[in-house]
């Protein structure tokens, strides 16, 4: 069967790609568009490594069909820094050493940004609940939560 042609906006740029009907958005990003910042962990929506936003809504890209994003606006980790200038969350993750192997980091940054867009002053508990869908096997989460709290403080000031 002919491959599907999808036109979408990724990080503000209009992008075209071809994909199979049963291909996930995660696979289209990584394998068709070579945007490998978005990671595959479990592939079943449990780990959050593949988090992106679609029309501002945080989702696991492994549980979205690529053909579904026709006409939508997607934001991925590649659009988070402004050129050489890191996003405050990215800076704080480095400062607080909130990552070790780094596989979960793009997903956690995207999820944390989505939280701060809705709630600029989250409590530690709110951060922990919001990030419950992002698994990290290295850090024990404490440094991640501290980095998000610190980034939120900086972004409010």
């Amino acid at each position, binding site marked *: *069967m002919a491959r*599907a042609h999808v036109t979408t906006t990724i990080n503000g740029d209009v992008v075209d790609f071809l994909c199979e*009907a*049963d291909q*996930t958005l995660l696979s289209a990003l990584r394998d068709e568009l070579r945007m490998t910042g978005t990671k595959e962990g479990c*592939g*079943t*929506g*449990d780990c*959050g490594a593949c*988090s992106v936003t*679609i029309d501002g*809504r*945080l*989702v*696991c890209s*492994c*549980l*979205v*069909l690529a*053909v*579904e994003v026709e006409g939508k606006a997607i934001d991925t980790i590649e659009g988070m820094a402004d050129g050489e200038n890191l996003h405050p969350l990215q800076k704080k993750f480095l400062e607080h050493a909130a990552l070790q192997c780094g596989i979960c980091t793009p997903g956690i940054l995207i*999820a944390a940004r*989505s939280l701060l867009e809705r709630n600029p002053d989250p409590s530690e508990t709110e951060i922990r*609940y*919001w990030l*419950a*869908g*992002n698994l990290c096997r290295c850090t024990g989460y404490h440094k991640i939560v501290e980095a998000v709290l610190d980034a939120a403080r900086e972004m409010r000031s």
Partner: protein
Amino acid sequence: MRYEAPDTLAGATAILAANAGAKILAGGTDLLVQMKSDMADPPVVVDVKKIPELCRITLVDGAYRVGAAVTGMELVEHAAFAKTWPGVIDGVKLIGSVQIKGRASMGGNLCNASPAADSVPALIAAGARVEIVGPQGKREAAVEDIGIAPGRTSLKPGEMVVAFLFPKRPPRSGDAYLRFTPRTEMDIAVVGAGISLALDAQGTCTAARVSLGAVAPRALLVDAAAKALIGTKLDAAALDRMAAACSAACQPIDDKRGTKEYRIKVAAVMATRAAEIAMDRARKS
């Protein structure tokens, strides 16, 4: 696999009628996992999110109508709905992570037919009904009549759930859903209890619905538990009778999440606590 995204109910029902084995795609949080693990291999996937009736939350004469494909996060963020049906929101909030709720819908949660689905006991307690469309036209059914066994629904071939229809909320009414899981987040209910009740001006319970999840092959509406509350002031003795009726209704399995005996006991505890929250909400409403 072929992907179809009709923008009308008629278009969707025509595709479902013409393609045996076609699967409906709303949030995809169950379907895509099933496809990945080869538990499902549908020839056609019908994305229903372009059909306006499935994606809207509307208030008609004081009663909510929630499209079957409305995402969990959209519902959680709908302040007026959340204020009216806090127990339904309790359930929806427990359907997985923020990412999962960004896609998952109550329609999918119901039609996936897991006996542990978190929104279902809350919907049953709320007295919600579903609007269904199929080859024979439209019909309505109570939420408790949809799931019949794990993974199986009473929907006939080619039928799909369009929307949830909520009753009008009387004054002094409240609902709540509680579940027990070993973890606080990202887990499957060992037992879930949903309760909705209404009080008169003197604080006597005039209406109640009690539903239990994960203690039988389908979510249960427990009439005997509701009867134990109606006509009382929701005193400790009434709550004890309600809790006993809940335990008596359980027909659970033993599995890694809990033994049969444990589930029967915890059902009574969850129902009592959910009733206390629903009571408190009713008194404050």
